[in-house]
Structures are given as structure tokens and as C-alpha cells.
């Protein structure tokens, strides 16, 4: 039996207005090569100056990952030739990175585990290549966008752990508002190293590097595939070749990259254009003291203060905005479980089907709580309420207007309902007798008749209770 050993390397684009070393806008989707200048295009004589926001974002993330911010940090040049790299070197950090030795707590099958974070450093992104026809097209808008590289120790032992780590990391970066973490837009990217060794063995096996995974699910799939592939090779007595593999989503396989003729030699040396950075303990403490509430603290607070379940809280806390929305609703209508059910159920269904986030949905917390309170008071049925929600999102009408227009108010007036029930009882004597002789099904038939007579407006729960009561008194 083999033990899986995984290390992850995540690159997160930092959310700043401008690039890492120049004043060009850090903006996704702008027309090609319109967010570039002599600095990010690497013109001779141009000089980089570090964006303080990128630096601060990096510190925040490192601290949230429990890393040790280094008192002195500097940048280095990493050299390689590729058309997406205008200077023929990337400004990165090598021997004195921003932060070292952290850890991220994850929950895996109700067991807690800390994934050690080896280092966190700042660097710049490269441009974007589009392969078209006979040539390749280069857009340098992305060149120089600040990136945070976050590297774990090879101490992740399953694809599920890798998935959990990535989910938790993404949640933290989003809570800190330092990155959008949108894998589709490439603002979060993940590479994985994976090797196998016999259980109990000390020496690590030969690893392969996996690239080109476009979602956390793809990371998990690629790792699962690679475990099977490597196991097959080892079982048949062959050796693993150290190489870089690309995940192919369509065939669900890892494919070898054309191997380079020569091992990469990046010839790192200190970036002479950027003086180093001294970080005092006071400065580090100031940033640390200003960190916002992080996902794990929020989850604990939600469980403690609102009595919600682990399951509910896991879902609500995935997005800070959803958690905030929950709290806004609770302030108006303090029914935690009802609100949570609605956010996790119907509302998240609407968000997904409309591909919107909770802010752009345009439903204010008081509107949702009004709707929920109608359901909680049995004024409308759960099913009708979902209909109202959809109608509300499709129009500018208020919740109350829609309920009235669609005539969805349930009959709660016991006099009116009582009359309907009496009529149903006298018209269905056979079923009444069946019920008396112990046939439970008969009751459901009678409830159905009440619903029919009330044109679906009776509250079935109330109708059933009233029916039972009347039948025992017959």
C-alpha cells in the first residue's frame, strides 16, 4: 500500500487598482495591450516601484495563514525566455520571501488537521498568450499584475485534503478582500506536486507536477487520476519519471508536457532596481490587529450565537457576503434557522440559476424576511413562497403585492375552514367510516378533498389537524 504525498502551489492575483510595479490598471478584460507602459513592457531605463497595497495585501494573507512575516524581505529576478515575459525575467522572491512557516487548519471527515504553509511570497504575473493559426498573440495587460504565491509543505495526504485546503484558502483570501479568487478568470491558479511512497517509508517518492487544472474539482480529479497512474507504474515494477503533466479536462487524463531539453536554470539574483523592505514588529502587529474576522472565527460565532448546525454554517460562511446577508436578515427577523434554510435553499437556487451573487440579486434583507415571516405564520405555503420569490426577482412588485395578485394567502380563518371541512365530511361518509375503522389513508384522502374544495388555499397542516379533531368527535 502506498501513501500519497501532495504539495500545492497557489497563485492568487491580488486585488489592487494598479499593477505591482507601475501605475497601469490591474483590470481583467480590457482591450489587449491598453494597460501597459514602459515599466511592465520592460523598456530599457524604466524602473519598478512596489505598490504598497499589494505589499499590504500580501502581509494580511500571510498573517491570516499564521505565517511568520520576515523582518527583512527583498525581490529577485527569475530568468527565463518566453514571449509572455517582456523583460525576460520575472520579478519574484527567492531566498528572503515575505513570510515563512504558517499553517492552515482544515476539517476532513470531522477531524481537524493543519496543512503546513511553507512560504508566501510576492511576484508579478506574466502576459497572456493566445494561440491562433500560424502564430501566437501576446497581450501584456496581465504582465506585472501582483501575485501572491502560497506554497504548502508536501504534507497533504489525499485529493480530498487538497480540495479542503484550497476551499479554505480561497475563503480566507476572499474574507480578507485581497483577491477575487476567480479560477475562471485566472485570478486563482493551482499547481500540484504528487508522489507515492510505501507506507512507513521515510524517503519521498519521485514526484510529478500537475498543471492546467481550472477548478478545485479538476485539482481533485487530476490528483485521483495521478494516484492511479503512479500506482500502476509502481505495481508493475517500473519507475516514475519526474516530469510536468498537464490535466486535460476533456479526456480526464494527465498528459506529459513536451520535456525541456535542459533543466531550467533560472539564475536568480537580487533585483537591483528594488531596495529591500524592513518590517518592524510594530508594523506587523498593526496589520495583524486590523485583520477582519476570518471564516473559522465566523463559523464558531454563528454556531454559538445563532444555534445553527455545522452543516448550515459551512454553507453560509463560504461567502462573506452571504454570511453578512444572514446577519442583516437576523437583525430584522431573529429566526436563525428559517433564514438559514431560505438562504441555503430557495435563495441559493435562484442565485445559481441566475448566475448572480447575493449583492447583485437586488433583494433587500427586509424583503426576504417579510416573505419568510409569511411562511412561518402559515399565511402562505412553502411552495407558494418559492413562487413569490421567483416572481419578486423577475419584477419590481413587492412581496405583498405578488401574494395578493396571485391570491396565495392560505385560509387561516378557522370558521371558513371549518365550514369546508364539515361539507367534506358529510359528502364522504365512506371515508369517514374507513378512518374510524383504522385506515390511515382515508385521512389523507379527506385532506385532499379539503384542499380541493378550498382551491388549494387551505393550509394542509391546519386542515389535517382540524379534520382529525372533528373525526374523533363524530
Amino acid at each position, binding site marked *: 500500500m502506498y501513501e500519497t504525498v501532495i504539495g500545492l502551489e497557489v497563485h492568487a492575483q491580488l486585488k*489592487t*487598482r*494598479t499593477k505591482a510595479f*507601475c*501605475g*497601469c*490598471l490591474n483590470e481583467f478584460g480590457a*482591450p*489587449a*495591450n*491598453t*494597460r*501597459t*507602459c*514602459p515599466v511592465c*513592457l520592460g523598456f530599457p531605463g524604466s524602473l519598478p*516601484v*512596489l*505598490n*504598497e*497595497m*499589494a*505589499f499590504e495585501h500580501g502581509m494580511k494573507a500571510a498573517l491570516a495563514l499564521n505565517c511568520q512575516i520576515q523582518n527583512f524581505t*527583498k525581490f529577485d529576478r527569475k*530568468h527565463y*525566455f*518566453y*514571449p509572455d515575459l517582456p523583460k525576460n525575467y520575472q520579478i519574484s522572491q527567492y531566498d*528572503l520571501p515575505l513570510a515563512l512557516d504558517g499553517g492552515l487548519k482544515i476539517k476532513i471527515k470531522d477531524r481537524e488537521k493543519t496543512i503546513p504553509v511553507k512560504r508566501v511570497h510576492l511576484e508579478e504575473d506574466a502576459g497572456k*498568450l*493566445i*494561440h*491562433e493559426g*500560424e*502564430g*501566437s*498573440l*501576446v*497581450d*501584456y495587460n496581465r504582465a506585472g499584475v501582483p501575485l501572491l504565491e502560497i506554497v504548502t509543505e508536501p504534507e497533504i495526504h489525499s485529493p480530498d485534503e487538497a480540495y479542503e485546503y484550497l476551499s479554505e484558502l480561497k475563503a480566507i483570501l476572499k474574507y480578507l478582500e485581497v483577491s477575487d479568487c476567480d479560477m475562471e478568470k485566472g485570478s486563482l491558479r493551482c499547481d500540484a506536486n504528487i508522489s507515492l511512497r510505501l507506507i512507513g517509508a521515510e524517503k519521498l517518492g519521485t514526484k510529478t507536477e500537475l498543471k492546467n487544472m481550472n477548478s478545485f474539482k479538476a485539482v481533485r480529479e487530476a490528483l485521483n487520476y495521478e494516484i492511479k497512474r503512479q500506482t500502476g507504474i509502481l505495481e508493475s515494477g517500473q519507475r516514475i519519471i519526474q516530469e510536468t503533466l*498537464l490535466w486535460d479536462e476533456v479526456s480526464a487524463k494527465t498528459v506529459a*508536457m*513536451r520535456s525541456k531539453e*535542459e533543466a531550467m*536554470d533560472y*539564475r536568480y539574483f*537580487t533585483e*537591483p532596481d*528594488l*531596495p*529591500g*523592505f*524592513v518590517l518592524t514588529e510594530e508594523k506587523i502587529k498593526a496589520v495583524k490587529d486590523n485583520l477582519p474576522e476570518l471564516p473559522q472565527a465566523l463559523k464558531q460565532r454563528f454556531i454559538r450565537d445563532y444555534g445553527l448546525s455545522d452543516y448550515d454554517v459551512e454553507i453560509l460562511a463560504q461567502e462573506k457576503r452571504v454570511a453578512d446577508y444572514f446577519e442583516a436578515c437576523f437583525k430584522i427577523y431573529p429566526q436563525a434557522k428559517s433564514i438559514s434554510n431560505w438562504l441555503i435553499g430557495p435563495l441559493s437556487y435562484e442565485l445559481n440559476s441566475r448566475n448572480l451573487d447575493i449583492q447583485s440579486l437586488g433583494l433587500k434583507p427586509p424583503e426576504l424576511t417579510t416573505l419568510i415571516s409569511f411562511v412561518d405564520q402559515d399565511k402562505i405555503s412553502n411552495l407558494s413562497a418559492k413562487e413569490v420569490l421567483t416572481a419578486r426577482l423577475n419584477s419590481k412588485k413587492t412581496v405583498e403585492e405578488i401574494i395578493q395578485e396571485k391570491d396565495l394567502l392560505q385560509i387561516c380563518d378557522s370558521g371558513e375552514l371549518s365550514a369546508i371541512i364539515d361539507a367534506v365530511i358529510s359528502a364522504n361518509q365512506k371515508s369517514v367510516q374507513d378512518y374510524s375503522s383504522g385506515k390511515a389513508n382515508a385521512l389523507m384522502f379527506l385532506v385532499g378533498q379539503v384542499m380541493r374544495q378550498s382551491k388549494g388555499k387551505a393550509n394542509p397542516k391546519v386542515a389535517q389537524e382540524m379534520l382529525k379533531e372533528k373525526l374523533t368527535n363524530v
Partner: protein
Amino acid sequence: MIISKDDVLKVANLARIELNQEELNLFSGQLESVLEFIAKLKKADVSSVKPMSHILDIQNVLRADIPGESLPNALVLKNAPESLKGHFRVPKVIE
């Protein structure tokens, strides 16, 4: 010899510089004397000198996250040997 011809060729290759035999001899000699000089420096007693990463005694040079001017696309592409649809165009590169 501190540096072999093979080392020079390797460095030249890393820097994407093609050298003919004459240039190889010329630059091998020049690199040799540079390295000889460095070898002398290595013998100097630096026990009282603090390691440094920058020759100037400055640190924490940062700029505010405020947008500056970018260049217009036409100007950006002015020196491009080939361009297409606002992009630089290069020979096909495949990973």
C-alpha cells in the same frame, strides 16, 4: 582555467546568445579575467562587513496604489515586428 569553454557555451545558451569559435575564444578569455578578479575579492576579509542586498542605504520604497498613464495601443505596438488585433504576434509557442 576557472571557466571551461563548455561552461561559456552553457551560459551563452541560457542567455540565448549564439557564439562562433572566434567569439567563444574572445569571451572565454574576458570571463576568465572577470572570474580571476572575483577570486581575488573572495580572499578579502569581510568578517566585519554586514551582508547587503542593495548598494544604496535605502529601504521601503513604495508607491501609493494610484493609477498612472498607460500607453496607447498603437504606440505599444510601434516596435513590434508583427502585430495582429492589438496583440504582439510571435512565432507559435506551445507549452
